[in-house]
């Protein structure tokens, strides 16, 4: 019966609000572009090379893993591209090709697919990759060593490192406006504070990033840093300095709010963000790493499942059966 009329039968609901994984990914990329463009503007072709190569590697690794695991091809959802882009944003413009290649593999394979792919990763994939690079090849992500041949007209010492090794007086020359406008060395996409904030606000307004997480993360940073700063102003930097240097802003708006590795209930989101901010400043101030964001993010990622157990009681759930 070729011309028989058949209806589509499915379960309710028959409406959808039109959101999709792909749209989310592309919004992330769009929101990250201002910071990336600033990086490319400052460092030129080397930065462009890292960004382009990282994104392509991430997408290619994803495709290869899809094929190897005989899974449907998922590169169209844009998640791999986002991971590649965020990884590149954390890397210095001089990152060697092999480090980018391995970093992208680490992000896609170790960060994402070993756990089952999109939505199953307990840790933030680009952060996993960055941590692996940092622990394996120290020189690759040592910004002072990596950017030694660049002179962009401002202090090219990596601000968190200067603060750690030389005290607050070494970073006195950085102005808030200068930091916001990217007049500091660091990862390709981590220095342009204004661009990151604009992108982050866009993601929050679009509803892709839950405002509770960046807000509490920033509050955590500011409060913890204030306490340190008050205790010894000569040794510990000002709170706003911690907020605008290193990869703090990138983490606040693009990394810690990553869907799979962050909580979804309100109180856990606040705890999660605040804990992240606290740990970041703690590692920077009394740990051995100049920028504490990497391990702070990975540590709070691990807390996520536990934190998310704090949730409201279901509707109509009485005390007698709680």
């Amino acid at each position, binding site marked *: 019966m070729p011309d*028989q*009329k*058949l*209806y*589509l*039968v*499915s*379960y*309710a*609901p*028959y*409406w*959808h*609000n*039109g*959101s*999709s*994984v792909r*749209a*989310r990914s592309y919004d992330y990329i769009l929101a990250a572009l201002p910071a990336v463009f600033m990086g490319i503007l400052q460092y030129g072709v080397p930065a462009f090379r890292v960004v382009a190569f990282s994104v392509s590697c991430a997408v290619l690794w994803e495709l290869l893993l899809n094929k190897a695991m005989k899974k449907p091809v998922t590169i169209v*959802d844009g998640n791999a591209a986002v991971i590649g882009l965020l990884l590149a944003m954390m890397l210095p413009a001089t990152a060697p090709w092999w480090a980018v290649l391995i970093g992208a593999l680490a992000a896609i394979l170790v960060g994402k697919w070993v756990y*089952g*792919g*999109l*939505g*199953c990763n307990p840790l933030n994939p680009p952060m996993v990759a960055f941590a692996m690079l940092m622990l394996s090849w120290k020189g690759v992500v040592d910004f002072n060593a990596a950017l030694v041949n660049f002179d962009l007209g401002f202090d090219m010492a990596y601000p968190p490192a200067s603060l750690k090794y030389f005290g607050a007086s070494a970073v006195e020359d950085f102005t808030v406006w200068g930091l916001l406008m990217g007049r500091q060395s660091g990862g390709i996409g981590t220095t342009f504070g204004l661009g990151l904030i604009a992108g982050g606000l866009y993601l*929050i*307004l*679009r*509803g*892709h990033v*839950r*405002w509770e997480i960046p807000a509490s993360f920033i509050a955590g940073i500011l409060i913890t840093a204030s306490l340190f700063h008050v205790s010894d102003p000569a040794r510990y930097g000002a709170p706003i300095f911690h907020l605008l240097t290193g990869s703090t802003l990138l983490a606040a708006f693009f990394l810690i709010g990553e*869907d*799979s590795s*962050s*909580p*979804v*209930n309100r109180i856990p989101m606040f705890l999660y963000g605040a804990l992240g901010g606290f740990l970041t400043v703690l590692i920077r101030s009394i740990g051995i790493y100049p920028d504490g964001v990497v391990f702070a993010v990975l540590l709070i990622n691990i807390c996520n499942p536990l934190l*998310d157990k704090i*949730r*409201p*009681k*279901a*509707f*109509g*759930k*009485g005390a*007698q*059966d709680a």
Partner: protein
Amino acid sequence: MIQRPFFNLGRRPQLPYPVLSQDALGALKDLPPPDRAVLLYKGPGLAGASPSIKRGDGVRTGQRLLLESGGAAPLVATVTGRVADISSQRGNLGKTYSSIGIDVTPRDEQDGEFFKIHKEGSPEQMLGYLEALPGMPSLSPLLPKAGPVRILIISGMDRDLLITSNQFLLKTETDALAEGIQRLKEMTQPDRIIMAVPPGSVSDAEKTGAEISVVRPFYPNGNPRLIVKDALKKAVPMNKSLEEAGIAFLGVDAVIALQPALVKGEIPIHRVVTVVNKDMGAIHARARVGTPVRKVLEALNIETGHGDRVVIGGPMTGRTLYAEDEPVLFDTEGILVQDRSHILPVSDTHCLNCGECVRVCPARIPVNILIRFLENRLYQDAVDVCDLSYCIECGLCSYVCPARIPIFHYIALGKHEFAQQMAEEAAHA
């Protein structure tokens, strides 16, 4: 289709119920009676039993047909004619229905049994008879019995978006409604009668003399559990049915349907349905109960094509049809026709854990965890850890899911499978 706003700040979607205003009600279209009516009995009915009716039997309007020997499983006919076909049908999730096709004769012949009960019988007998109308909700919660304070809640809200039949009836048949409520009050003596209505219908509802509870007209506030919570300022625990809590919940449509029966002893035979066309234009039509959907669409000149979707009910909780033979029953609030170009396919992507569903869930269920259990068929865990049984079935989780996982479908399946597991365990205990 209501799209997500471009900037939504992570807020829950605001899905307004359509609100009818007095001067934009539109005309009520009377549909001709069908040549062949179909009556459905929702229950095993004919399965394995010898029905007391058979093909070729004459049927009168209002006659009680007994589908099983011994008087069980009654069904009251809403047409006069000759039985042409008796069959058993499968519905969603393994439910079985008995379907009786009747060739309708144009002239109605009334069966006298109900009239006699109306004159001489008790309220129990009357409501028991009316309960057997096809698609009529259970009326036993109305009956007086010992227990907690008894409350009758009449909803002037429609259960789903786009559907406006309850609102329409509230505005156009206010007198009949008031009379019906008055009669129910005399018969069943509830302690309180509350009408839950959208803001635009308060003045109409006041004419009935009931207490008024105004419901914010945003989905899913028309859900019975949420209406009860709004009206009583206290949620009924989900492990208790509304009936157990002493609450009888009826829609305005049910009261309107019962009114002629309660007042005059006439068996109701019509119901008003909202028919929503592909362009989302709504028409209110009065159809003989038992009219197949095909006849309704034909009479309203609505064309459907291959790959379209025809839904009984609304866009959030309705039920799709695979054939147009299913009839309009007393619980058919609306018929929605969706063009195939408007249908978004679901996907089998993993849950992203974005939490949209958690924030939108009116029952505060951890849907992001629940869906993981359900996908892996861990129904016991879904119930124990994730409050599966507390779902009030609004469908919003599927509506907002960016991964387009059919979450609501998983939930329905999970509840069904869990109930089966429980039944099996009880049988072996």
